[in-house]
């Protein structure tokens, strides 16, 4: 029987959405192989977590200890290594999140378990695991086989499947924490909240998102002018913040803000999944990009395949004309 283990991810006392995606995906994979899905909770005061998770898994293994209140890849690795060795699952699923990225490679390496990261699909046939991953800035997909091993581990990208309502009633198994203090060499200290800036892009009806295609800082004024003309606010993708052309609070995406404006105009943004995650729920999306294969065109309602330096000034003029 091929069982699946899924790690419950939580932060600041709340289960994160990725958990329910993992549990939904894991349950489907397990059922295909006549196996069971086990949710693993490492946390502190986990009563509510267990209540929420037990509808989504056949079994829940809980280690409740203060040391698991906040994520530390070291304590999690220690505890999970023990659990995986005891449970001997066919596959362990972890979210491809800031936590999962810190945890999975070291944990799998310690256990000698073949692993890979950032999967957007998993197929299991004849005990072989084939995953789909994205390469080259998300412009290519790849089918990748995991090498044969005693067990497998992978991280699953957020959004790989929609979380479904659970209708199971898991057996709950409480276990002792196998580690009870943080190691001296890696200690969680605190969470630091993002600084609050003067503009809240989550409140704007119209956002003009600018990306790497803008090329130079000097060109940013063109975007500011355009946003002003349309009555919108300038937001951006990660490279613009990395270059310090806009503050962090203007960044749209998984490590920035999630926005839901009436109109999002993506200018020179190719559409990395991290960015898409932050703006896909906008009512209307218009994308301007010179690469016809840019992933942003899969999310946009309207696309303009053209040099942004030609389109943006022309569009600004048309909007100004219309306003008069």
């Amino acid at each position, binding site marked *: 029987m091929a069982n699946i283990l899924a790690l419950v991810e939580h*932060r600041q006392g709340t289960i994160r959405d990725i958990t329910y995606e993992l549990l939904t995906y894991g349950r489907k994979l397990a059922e295909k192989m006549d196996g069971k899905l086990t949710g693993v909770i490492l946390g502190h005061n986990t009563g509510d977590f267990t209540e929420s998770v037990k509808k989504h898994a056949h079994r829940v293994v809980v280690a409740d200890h203060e040391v698991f209140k906040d994520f530390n*890849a070291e304590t999690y690795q220690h505890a999970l290594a023990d659990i995986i060795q005891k449970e001997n699952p066919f596959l362990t699923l972890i979210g491809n*999140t*800031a*936590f999962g*990225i810190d945890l999975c*490679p*070291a944990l799998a*390496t310690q256990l000698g378990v*073949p*692993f*890979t*990261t*950032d999967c957007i699909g998993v197929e299991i046939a004849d005990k072989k695991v084939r995953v789909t*991953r994205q*390469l*080259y*800035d998300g412009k*290519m*997909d*790849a*089918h*990748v*086989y995991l*090498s044969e091993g005693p067990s497998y581990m992978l991280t699953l990208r957020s959004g790989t499947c929609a979380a479904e309502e659970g209708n199971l009633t898991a057996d709950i198994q409480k276990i002792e924490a196998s580690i009870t203090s943080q*190691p*001296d*060499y*890696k200690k*969680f*200290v605190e*969470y*630091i909240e*993002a600084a609050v800036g003067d503009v809240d892009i989550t409140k704007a009806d*119209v956002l003009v998102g600018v990306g790497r295609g803008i090329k130079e800082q000097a060109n940013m004024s063109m975007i500011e002018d355009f946003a002003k003309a*349309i*009555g919108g606010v300038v937001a951006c993708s990660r*490279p613009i*913040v990395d270059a*310090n052309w806009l503050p*962090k609070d203007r960044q749209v995406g*998984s*490590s920035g*803000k999630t926005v839901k404006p009436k*109109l999002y105009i993506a200018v020179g943004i190719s559409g990395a999944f991290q960015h898409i995650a932050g703006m896909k729920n906008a009512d*209307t999306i218009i994308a301007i990009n010179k*690469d016809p294969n840019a*992933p942003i*065109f*899969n999310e946009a*309602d309207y696309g*303009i395949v*053209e040099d942004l330096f030609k*389109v943006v000034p*022309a*569009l600004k003029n*048309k*909007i100004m*004309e*219309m306003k008069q």
Partner: protein
Amino acid sequence: MDLIVCIKRVPQTAEAEVKIDGSGKDIVKDRLTFDMNEADSYALEEAILLKEKSGGNITAVSLGSAEAEDTLRIALAKGADSAIRIKLEDFGELDGFKTAALIREAIKDIKFDAILTGCMSTDDSYYQVGPTLAEMLGIPHATLVSKIEVADQKAHVHRELEGGLIEHLEMSLPAVFAVQTGINEPRYASLIAIRRAAGKEIKVIGKEEISSEAKLNSTLEELFIPPVGERAEILTGTPDEVSKRTAEIIKEKGLI
């Protein structure tokens, strides 16, 4: 502080059209430009900043083909003191795990306080090499690192979490830091420094010098174009025509 920086030379695909080559397992690379992986250039800069504060040596390591030596020379020009190329051509197919194993072999005689890598490379986006290497070396790691402050062999490290939240960690050295983009402002190498670096020796090591028992964790079967869902309605015409149509659409939505 003695530092090791892992650097990869990658095709620049963010702003380019990407096509699959005849093997079905790789992309057509002859019309792409290559450069230091973006996150690695931030890792290198962070190493240089740490060295400027506390002295020490920086060794840049790259697993790559002969062309990777150009990228290593850029690292030397910016501030690395020595450079090692691990011969990609000697080790066949790679994944994050085997890459980490080969780097571990290549650096086993080098004293270091920290290893810095980019948190991911833009070509195969594994996010694996840093934490895997740390586990192989039996030292702690942090990924997605957005700040490093070192005092008395302790590092205060920030990691970037989702939604802009920061995780603050205290770590002891030696450690591996997989650095996120945006942690600093990578410098440009001056022409004089580039000229000077052209004459520096790059140590090249291959299967005669190192071997690894590491087996691949994964094997790429095929590349394919991501399936397109409901694609955008593409507006066609001159910039003026598409602008007119776009403005009309925005007006129809009641936003002008």
